[in-house]
């Protein structure tokens, strides 16, 4: 690969100083004069009709400045690509425990809480369905959305989300059925196989748990304009929702996102902010909605739980001949916050890595009376990849083939066609697998000691992720007379380090050091349009846009400098604040001289460039899922883990962990490592501990005591955690980069669970593999 000055270098984060000194401002740190405090009242029932809401007592409480119910909301449903969600139950039905029915704004949070208790709601309870397999049935006991076919659909407006909406007439709770078909008939493939392996895999619901809970300050001006400051992953995503839902001019909507204290997908949500807007409109005061952890876990949405059925045909030498996958995606009560699209997107895990001559996939999005769902780091891909990679290990064991070898045999190749019909490119899966296998060989299992209660196991996994071809990112650059480059773009800084990566791109383009780059983002008033920090897309989309913006600015600068240097623009280059003749660095003019002594001699205080990036996209055939270009790119990764399992207590310790990923190019290797290690942290939790527990739809553990995310003690030592950059350049990316973030949580879960199963010699096909589950599995195995 070409060597660059700043690209590919682990330069320190440009936001680190503010963050280590406590100066970085998050929405939770910000107050606005005259601000009120909001609280939301939720339904105690999983499914009910609202007979009456009486807010009169709450309104009379001293300090209460506004109470809203569904009557105050626009009389329409919210959501994309399927508008299925009411706001404050504005159609009189609630479908999950905690669904907002009313909200209060008051002088203090204590008064707002007191007012909630004074709001009287009469419900008529309706039967509810919680189990996804039950809800999926043709004769489902409860229909969650009886008017589903009347709902407004936007899938034709946003085909890049890659999920057509296809209802199932006989299955009333299915909100979409995503299909992929390729090659031979699977039934023929199963008949021809030497071995057929069929398994059912079950996952828990999990949550993102960003450390900063949802925060929002809504302001409503008398001219009808609104300003929203919030924990958001997409200022323009939010702007689009607020503009459409409240039916106001986009010129009157400003959305701001300061630093965000973690997101992982859940900050793509915008419905709670709509409630804050209603309160601001009603009270004509700025309103702050600040979730507690309990609010964030009950009112904030969840990653869906899954039931996944995989049936494989294999030859005795280990080649997959046929595969049929059926996935039930428990969407909960509403999929308004883009969750419908992930029915297709979570399935990508089954489509991009292996070669299978007869293939069929059916993923069903199913409504239940549980909390709605939303994207979480790989949009359900973690769970689907886990099931697939458990299945690969089960096959390897049945055939007595080494698990790594089995995967190698079935890998796709560069230039082949993947299971959705795309040509395979920038395919790093083999490189990643080889690197992980090499490292794992060194991590050989210690010999088991007699009577040792700790059993050691190794596990490996493989996987892919993608970015969506969704609309656009743009970037602008300004060059100031002192040579400082100002970069502006829309995508939010969630901790992933995108500000630093984009600053590196601008620094490289202009040949300046990083301290000469200023980054502007997080405010629709100053940042040009861009979709959002989602789908691991910021480096690729905003990065590509920025390269083009820099090139345009440079063209203008060279055009201005050319006559002064008596050369043509094409003969010029620039770096370190000078424009010079290519190959003759002494024949140069200072940037400051270009502007003239006052900085405005040419009518300019700055010189600007703008660039955008869109990615080509071909809509898939809805019956077969086939398309020559459905996703921007696929990133591949492999993972290896070694665990120790205590056969008395069921405790699992992850001893060693190694991941390798092909992110195209690591623009900042240390930032990439940070993503990989963070992916392990979340993956370890999902594999072993994290589960949202429900009783009749009510969340039992909405707190960080009972919902167990991994602590520093549960992660392997620094020495035993290895993150490998196995980059394979991507021609269409900025400096060859793809993206990384979401991919990193996809592979660790299967590697860890495969290692646990390897240690025990027992297949456990349900996550998380808690201590209880280990002990139970051992008991059952002894029978």
């Amino acid at each position, binding site marked *: 690969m070409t060597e660059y000055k700043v690209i590919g270098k682990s330069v320190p984060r440009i936001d680190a100083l503010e963050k*280590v000194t406590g100066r970085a401002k998050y929405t939770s740190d910000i107050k606005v004069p005259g601000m009120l405090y909001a609280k939301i009242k939720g339904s105690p029932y999983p499914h009910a009709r609202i007979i009456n809401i009486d807010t009169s007592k709450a309104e009379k409480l001293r300090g209460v400045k506004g109470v809203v119910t569904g009557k105050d909301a626009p009389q329409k449903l919210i959501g994309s690509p399927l508008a299925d969600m009411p706001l404050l139950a504005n159609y009189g039905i609630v479908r999950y425990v905690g669904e907002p029915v009313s909200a209060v704004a008051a002088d203090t949070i204590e008064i707002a809480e007191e007012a909630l208790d004074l709001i009287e709601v009469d419900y008529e309870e309706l039967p509810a369905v919680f189990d996804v397999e039950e809800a999926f049935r043709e004769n489902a006991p409860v229909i969650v959305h009886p008017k589903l076919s009347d709902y407004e659909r936007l899938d034709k407006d946003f085909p890049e989300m890659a999920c057509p909406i296809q209802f199932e007439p006989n299955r009333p709770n299915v909100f979409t059925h995503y299909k992929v078909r390729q090659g031979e008939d699977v039934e023929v493939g199963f008949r021809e196989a030497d071995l057929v392996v069929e398994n059912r895999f079950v996952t828990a619901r999990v949550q993102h748990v960003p450390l900063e809970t949802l925060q929002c300050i809504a302001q409503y001006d008398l001219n009808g304009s609104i300003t929203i400051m919030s924990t958001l992953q997409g200022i323009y995503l939010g702007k689009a929702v607020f503009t459409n839902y409240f039916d106001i001019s986009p010129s009157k909507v400003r959305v701001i996102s300061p630093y965000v204290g973690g997101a992982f997908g859940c900050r793509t949500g915008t419905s709670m902010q709509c409630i804050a807007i209603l309160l601001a409109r009603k009270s004509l005061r700025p309103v702050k909605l600040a979730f507690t952890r309990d609010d964030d876990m009950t009112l904030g949405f969840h990653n869906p739980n899954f039931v996944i059925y995989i049936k494989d045909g294999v030859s005795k030498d280990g080649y997959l001949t046929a595969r049929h996958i059926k996935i039930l995606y428990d969407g909960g009560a509403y999929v308004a916050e883009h969750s419908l699209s992930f029915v297709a997107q979570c399935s990508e895990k089954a489509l991009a890595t292996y070669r299978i001559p007869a293939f069929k996939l059916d993923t069903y999005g199913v409504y239940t009376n549980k909390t709605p769902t939303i994207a979480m780091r790989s949009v359900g891909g973690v769970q689907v990849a886990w099931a697939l990679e458990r299945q690969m290990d089960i096959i390897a064991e049945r055939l007595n083939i080494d698990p790594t070898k089995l995967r190698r045999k079935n890998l796709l190749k560069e230039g082949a066609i993947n299971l959705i019909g795309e040509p395979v490119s920038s395919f790093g899966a083999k490189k990643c697998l080889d690197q992980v296998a090499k490292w794992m060989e060194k991590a050989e299992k210690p010999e088991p000691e007699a009577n040792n209660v700790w059993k050691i196991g190794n596990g490996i996994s493989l996987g892919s992720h993608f970015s969506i071809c969704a609309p656009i990112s743009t970037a602008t650059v300004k060059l100031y007379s002192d040579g400082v480059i100002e970069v502006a773009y829309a995508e939010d800084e969630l901790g992933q380090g995108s500000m630093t990566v984009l600053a590196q791109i601008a620094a490289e383009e202009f040949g300046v050091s990083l301290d000469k780059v200023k980054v502007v983002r997080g405010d629709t008033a100053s940042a040009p349009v861009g979709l959002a920090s989602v789908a691991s897309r910021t480096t690729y989309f905003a990065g590509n846009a920025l390269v083009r913006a820099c090139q345009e600015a440079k063209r203008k600068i060279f055009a201005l400098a050319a006559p002064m240097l008596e050369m043509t623009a094409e003969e010029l280059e620039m770096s370190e604040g000078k424009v010079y003749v290519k190959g003759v660095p002494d024949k140069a003019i200072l940037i400051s001289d270009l502007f003239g002594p006052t900085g405005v001699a040419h009518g300019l205080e700055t010189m600007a460039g703008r660039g955008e990036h869109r990615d080509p996209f071909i809509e898939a055939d809805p019956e077969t899922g086939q398309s020559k270009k459905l996703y921007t790119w696929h990133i591949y990764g492999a993972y290896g883990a070694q665990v120790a399992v205590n056969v008395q207590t069921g405790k699992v310790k992850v001893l060693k962990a190694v991941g390798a990923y092909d992110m195209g190019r690591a623009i900042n290797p240390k*930032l990439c490592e*940070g993503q990989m*290690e*963070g992916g392990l942290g979340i993956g370890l939790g999902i594999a072993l501990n994290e589960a949202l527990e429900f009783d009749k739809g009510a969340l039992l553990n909405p*707190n*960080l005591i009972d919902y167990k995310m991994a602590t520093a003690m549960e992660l392997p030592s620094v020495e035993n955690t290895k993150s490998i950059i196995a980059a394979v350049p991507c021609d269409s990316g900025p400096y060859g980069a793809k993206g990384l973030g979401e991919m990193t949580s996809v592979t660790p879960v299967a590697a860890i669970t495969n290692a646990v199963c390897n240690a025990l010699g027992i297949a456990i096909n349900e996550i998380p593999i808690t201590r209880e589950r280990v002990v139970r599995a051992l008991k059952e195995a002894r029978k």
Partner: protein
Amino acid sequence: MKQEFEFILNGEICDAYIEPWHSLLDLLREQFALTGAKSACQSMTCGACTVLVDGKAVRSCSILAPQVEGRHVVTIEGLGGEDGLDPLQQAFIDHFAVQCGFCTPGMILTAKALLDENPNPTEEEVRMHLTGNLCRCTGYVKIVEAILAARKKD
């Protein structure tokens, strides 16, 4: 009824005036606008609100404001001196131990209390000490590395 008392905040004598049922975290964030200490769990599990009280790491959400009367409180804003950053802050920058940054102040102050008491902890001791501080971004790897790097090498 608000209560008035004196305490030492980041080296300066300060007057607090607050309802006695408010937490130290409320006092710092609301009255002194020191927002480095964060509220993230309300159940004493995440450590994002950690500050130093008389040199010990304390979860400021879990003690009442008047309990610091006459005591030394140090927040992330008071760490480091005239000559710049505390070595821990610099190590967090150098080792990429920061991502979203929401847990960072609590992590640094927890580590500060540890290193003040035990200048040369092992990795195991560092990890044990951090169990009360949750991070969702980093997998703790670079945080542990930064703290190990900031140990006072003899």
